[in-house]
């Protein structure tokens, strides 16, 4: 059985030449996307990978104290280690002290157990005068940390090249002396509160935004064009205005001598000398973030509501439904895509918000991103900042993934 092949003008079977053209088009499309893809791969995706890497990378200390860790391997962790270990530590630490390179160790080991820093600093000064042999006694005479088993256990715990200790710290957990995971002391639990507050603020800001945005989006979608365009300016002007301008306007409004407090005093809700604190706490964060993120809720809701024909509601009512049933059975379900898009967008943005909480939030209104910035800029614990960043990133990407499944990422509308 033979089928006759259709040939194109140059004698190639049509199927082949069609496939070739398809492939060429595919390559052309890929080449157009290529530059941006490569650019982002190098300057963005790869650095984020680098950040993940940094959060578990603990090789610095492993590389500085190789002899010590080799000697500690046989140590059982019950009593103080024997002379061999002290000698190995001397071999590692002496060159570091001479080259003035021990500084990084202080900080790193002090994260593990506080007291290390002062002990190592003193050892650093004294080690030049150590005599050969009997290192254990000399170390023990130098500083009390060398008399305690706990410090040696802590040191041994830093031996692995990779460590997820920073992630434990981000969840208020830690390794104890026997390398079990335990909770940190009650008064040092700061991160759990921070995570809960971040989620709490993001959740309530989303709820407030939704409650405020739904009626006005409905109004914008149902008003005649000439009025709605005018009102749309109220939504779009804040949207286009600098975030810092909007935050500073809230700082003006919420300050102790500000217009809102003036109004509260004038209305008699508070005495003039006892004005309520509206700023530098979580109230300020809530109010300012809700206003700032409101446009992100209105725009997707509006674009969905715009497509709903008003005759549907009329049909529902004419079939005997009360306005309320018509609304909840017909209109509300139809706006679900907009609600999903708006809520997820606002939640994603607010969970990583930095500027506004930092300026109007004070201590009780600061969020997880403020802590990341603190560790980046002030404490310089970049590994911990990376670990917190990674935890936040996982959360956001999960929501992004859900968003993509539910709404589709190409359905984002701007302006």
């Amino acid at each position, binding site marked *: 059985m033979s089928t006759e092949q259709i040939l194109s003008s140059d004698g190639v079977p049509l199927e082949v030449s069609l496939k070739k053209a398809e492939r060429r088009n595919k390559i052309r499309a890929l080449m157009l996307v290529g530059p941006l893809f490569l650019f982002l791969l190098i300057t963005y995706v790869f*650095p984020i990978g680098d950040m993940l890497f940094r959060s578990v990378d603990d090789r610095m200390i492993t590389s500085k104290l190789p002899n010590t860790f080799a000697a500690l391997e046989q140590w059982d962790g019950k009593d103080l280690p024997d002379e061999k270990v002290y000698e190995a530590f001397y071999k590692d630490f002496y060159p570091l002290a001479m080259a003035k390179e021990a500084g990084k160790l202080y900080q790193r080991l002090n994260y593990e157990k506080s007291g290390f820093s002062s002990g190592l600093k003193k050892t650093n000064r004294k080690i030049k005068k150590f005599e050969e042999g009997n290192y254990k006694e000399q170390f023990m005479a130098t500083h009390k940390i060398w008399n305690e088993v706990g410090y040696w256990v802590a040191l041994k715990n830093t031996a692995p090249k990779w460590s997820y200790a920073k992630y434990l710290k981000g969840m208020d957990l830690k390794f104890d002396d026997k390398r079990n995971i335990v909770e940190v002391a009650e008064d040092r639990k700061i991160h759990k509160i921070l995570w809960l507050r971040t989620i709490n603020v993001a959740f309530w800001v989303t709820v407030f935004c939704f409650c405020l945005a739904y009626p006005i989006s409905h109004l914008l979608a149902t008003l005649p064009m000439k009025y709605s365009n005018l009102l749309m300016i109220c939504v779009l002007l804040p949207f286009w205005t600098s975030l810092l301008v909007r935050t500073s306007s809230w700082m003006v409004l919420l300050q102790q001598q500000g217009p809102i407090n003036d109004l509260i005093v004038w209305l008699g809700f508070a005495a003039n000398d006892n004005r309520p604190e509206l700023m530098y706490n979580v109230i300020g964060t809530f109010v300012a973030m809700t206003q700032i993120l409101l446009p992100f809720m209105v725009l997707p809701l509006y674009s969905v509501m715009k497509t709903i024909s008003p005759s549907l509601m009329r049909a529902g009512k004419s079939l005997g439904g009360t306005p309320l049933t018509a609304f909840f059975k017909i209109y509300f379900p139809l706006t679900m895509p907009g609600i999903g898009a708006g809520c997820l967008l606002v939640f994603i943005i607010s969970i990583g918000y930095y500027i506004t909480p930092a300026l109007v939030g004070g201590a009780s209104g600061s969020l997880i991103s403020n802590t990341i910035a603190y560790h980046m800029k002030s404490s310089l614990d970049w590994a911990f900042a990376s670990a917190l960043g990674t935890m936040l990133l996982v959360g956001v990407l999960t929501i992004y993934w859900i968003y993509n499944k539910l709404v589709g990422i190409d359905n984002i509308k701007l302006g």
Partner: protein
Amino acid sequence: MALPNYTPIHYRIWHYTYLTICGLVFFFLIAPLFVILPLSFNAEQYIHFSEKMLALDPDGFSLRWYKDMIWGTKNPWGLATKNSLIIAFFATIGSTILGTVAALGLSSRHMPYKAAFMALLISPMIVPLIISGTAIFFFMAKVGLAATHTGIILSHIILGTPFVVITVTATLSGFDHSVTRAAASLGSNPVNTFMKVTLPLITPGVISGALFAFVTSFDEVIVVLFLAGLENTTIPIQMWVGLREQLSPTILAVATCLIIMSTLILVSAELLRRRSERLRGINR
């Protein structure tokens, strides 16, 4: 929205309540911006409405904070404005070109793994800025671009491209591809077709994407905060620094200028959007 006169009373009440609620929300959205305007003309040093201002006495108002902004001693705004404009200009050009070209590829029927590519290219917009900032800082420090204009411009290109990609793909979604085929059949090469046919038609989308990229760069704090040295300070950084110390009337003067700028951007973005919809034949 006048109600017909047979509307029952409870519905009437509900309707006016609804309008009042909407009015309050619109007020909540727009009023904070307008608090800044009069206070930036305050003659006094304190940021609150003085009695002279409330009485509309001309003595209560002055331009001293604007003068301070422009001519004030050791004021940082001149350098900051220059830096902001340079950075935003190059970042806008970079992200517009990269984003538009990528959007052309993404809108092609033949593009494989479209959703995956799209998700990746949009991700700088979704990932919280603090994380992007951290990652970008590590990268720029590694390649020696920390505290340089180039480093900041590159990071702003990263942050700006998603907006260009989104607006241009949206414009291309209504694009009639038969016009490019017609051009090709008349003997035009792809580059010529793009310049003469496609580009003029998608220009509104490209420009509104560019506006987004410009605003993103002009308003960006976190990455610059991590990357910038003293030489690279920008307007948002100076505002940030000023707001952390104390709220000064000069900042309000700067803020007023920024509000005027955003009004201009809003107007142009709206005009472009309408033009784009007209060109794509979308009638509402």
